[in-house]
């Protein structure tokens, strides 16, 4: 067991974890952050995407011990004082989700995408999201949501 100290969604946590424990399992099983989900075993689907010190990571591809001393933001920490993040709003307005399983990861990745490039072209959005799989929407409205959020930010 290894002791880690992590900031998650604005709160401090201190836990003993097995060195092999993945960050996504730590979030879900130890902290109850079930908004972050597991969709595959090969880091392809991106459903578990969170922010580590403000940058998107696939939390199935990070060990909990690697998050020691760092700050994690999950889908559950995005809304501030009951006010949705603009990307959450954009996903809702543009009908960018159906079953919603990929949505937490997709939103976290979309925020990261705009942080890197505030005014992306459609092609840049599509390339920026290609590590996140969605089976429901055909990505059509997800692309629109990111465009809408980018427009709103200007």
């Amino acid at each position, binding site marked *: 067991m290894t002791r880690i100290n992590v900031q998650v969604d604005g709160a401090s946590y201190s836990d003993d974890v097995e060195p092999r424990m993945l960050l996504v399992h730590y979030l879900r099983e130890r902290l109850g952050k079930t908004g972050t989900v597991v969709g*595959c*075993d090969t880091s392809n689907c991106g459903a578990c995407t969170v922010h580590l010190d403000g940058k998107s990571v696939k939390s199935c591809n990070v060990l909990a011990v690697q998050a020691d001393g760092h700050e994690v933001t999950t889908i559950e920490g995005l809304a501030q004082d009951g006010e949705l993040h603009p990307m959450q709003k954009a996903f809702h*307005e543009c009908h960018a989700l159906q079953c*919603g399983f990929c949505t937490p990861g997709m939103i976290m990745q979309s925020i990261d995408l705009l942080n890197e490039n505030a005014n992306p072209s459609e092609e840049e959005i599509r390339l920026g999201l290609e590590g*996140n799989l969605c089976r429901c*929407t055909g990505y059509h409205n997800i692309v629109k949501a990111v465009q809408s959020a980018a427009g709103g930010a200007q």
Partner: protein
Amino acid sequence: MTATETVSTGSTSGTGSTTGRREIGSARTRKEDQRLITGRTKWTDNIVLPGMLHLAMVRSPFAHATITNVDTAEAKAAPNVVTVLTGADVTEEQGSLPNVWAITAEQKTPPHPSIAVDRVTFAGEIVAVVVARSAAEARDAAELVDVDYEELPAVLDLKEAAEDRVLVHPDLGTNKSAFWQLDSAAAGTGTSVDDEIAEARRDGIVLEREYRQQRLIPAFMEPRSFVCDPTGEQITLWSATQIPHIVKFFVSVVLAIPEHKVRVIAPDVGGGFGGKLQVNPEEFITVMAARRTGKPCKYTETRSESLMASHHGRDQWQRLTLAAKKDGTVTGIKVDLLTDLGSYVSLLGGGTPLLGAFMFIGIYKFAAYQFNCTPVFTNKTWTDAYRGAGRPEATFAIERLMDELAHEVGVDSLEIRERNWITHEEFPFTTVAGLEYDSGNYEAATAKAKEMFGYDELRAEQTRRREANDPVQLGIGVSTFTEMCGLAPSRILGQLNYGAGGWEHASVRMLPTGKVEVITGVSPHGQGHETAWSQIVADRLGVAFEDVEVLHGDTQVSHKGLDTYGSRSLAVGGQALVMATDRVIERAKPLVAHLLEASVDDIEFDSGRFAVRGTDRGLGIGEVAMAAFAAHNLPDGMEPGLDAEATYDPVGFSYPHGTHLCAVEIDTETGGVKLRKYTCVDDVGTIVNPLIVAGQVHGGVTQGIAQALWEEAVHDEAGTLVSASFVDYLVPTAADLISFDTGHTTSPATNHALGSKGVGEAGAIASTPAVVNAVVDALRPFGVSDVRMPCTPERIWKAIHDQAGGGGDPTEQDAMPHFDEADTADRTDGAGA
């Protein structure tokens, strides 16, 4: 009637009253979204119960083998392992997994154990189950279960299996499970197809083609997950399922637990596409483990387990003979199918291809039709419904053939269809397959699609590129489709020997504060029923959209229902809801008449208000609900309350249709395909929510494109699934796709009041032939007349360089996906970089 849908955008989810506005047809943003975008969703895998145990499966690495010994001693001794179950431990209890659709009385249906007892028949079959205090410990211990196998010869190829040289189930004596035929001459719905073919051979055109529907995997994003709590009076099973009511029935019947002692809950469910229209071994195993240990048990599959052992879809060989006159008027079509069951007969089993039996004639008027279907066992994962279930296969065949015929006759692809389709004046039209199409307007949908697409301009560009020998050629693909939806009239299901009915149920609870709870028997997993059902109730009862709560998926709340599949929820469940709301109004009228001292015949209802005709006296529906609840002053004999329920059994199927047009660019030097433009005009009848309908079309079209270009379940020579992760099973990414142009025409369904036809499967049914037709169209100058799916760059390149081959010898091994550098560079997994 044809009308263009206009989609308004922007949020309408304010808190103000919306009474009086028309909700049906409004692009409401969804109620469901709030929990989904904030991570407060209730997935089955989120459930944690006190003392809960976790399951891990030990699965066969062999496609066919005898189990000679299962040694669980070491696994049982591992840390925090509670028990290990083998097939021998549960032989009596586990029964056999169900098949609800024996397609013939003689169908061969082998026993299907949840845990294999003495033999495994596909790689991935469960042979033992470890129950431990944590999921990680269960998986660690699963590695310690020592199974001895004696490998047996496996048969993997569908055509080889049909030859019966190697048997999947030796006891059956054959790999053929059944034979099912529909013949228009025998049924009296048309002439003899053999006569029409003979006539066309003398003086006409006969096209003979063989098409392959490759094996696909539904690949819903939420892995299957089951939690069973055995404490209390009822056993409670949470399941990531599309079909909680059907699961409840079979948990009871198969495991011999009295039906009233079982409660099944489908909480938030992350996609299904038919893949969660299943009663799963893992589901029964979770229940058995919970009952044996007396503790809540959970099983959540890994993605590789999901791809390997959740049911697969499609997988057919189609041999087709089309007869036509010289002018391109089709006179008949004969269909011979070999369909791959995998190693067992699943829930719908050999019935899935029969959902396509009536659809190989598409939207056309043919004189003769014959459909022959032989479901065959192979040593592979068992197959069942995948988005469209039988109808995509049929649509693919006929729409590919119509393009071949157009080429043969030398006319445009759309023109050949116009010569053969049912015109809008001819509805209702009884087809040669014996179904009555109630409404439609193929001319209007096609004209609109053609204009939106810029068909003539793209054809002109195609001509220019061909003349210039451009290395990048343009292909234009057409698909004018219909499907049978709204499953299903119970009487017809009975005639087809299906084991259940096709009705649907809805209840409306009028709460004393004027709010409304709606209970539906369908079970959404992404379709947005909470929003659409609220819109229907808001319109019918004149209450605010926000004042309606839609409850579903819990058999204790929704006591009656047949769940969600086959584009049935709105077309059947929506109509049940309309009927239930009408009954609320009818129940209220005598009370209103009593309170206002008027005659019942003079009470009118409009936009949430009851009024005495010709007066200004009236009561709001909320006031009436409170009066009915208080029951202080009811007319003699009236029961308190306004609640009502209804069960609707459809009188006919519904027939959505549409015209899909696709343009692709093919780099003839590499074989790479790029989507250039995709336009579709769908007629799904009355649209309740255009935002949701467009989303369903986008997703369906994408899955159909993926079948055409990327996806295939590939096995190696030993029967191991090679494409058992998202590295190899190519679910498309955002970077593979383009934005779509969607439009609508509207011909309401005529057999029920709501007029909706269903939209869940339309895109997936229509788009696959549109894309393959576009690929073939681009390659016509090279003499190519077919490319096998998925149309990989390698197959296309080979087709260009080996015109007769049409993409290579059609064997299983040739189905291996290969990618040139340009193609892999576009993928997400870094494999190309």
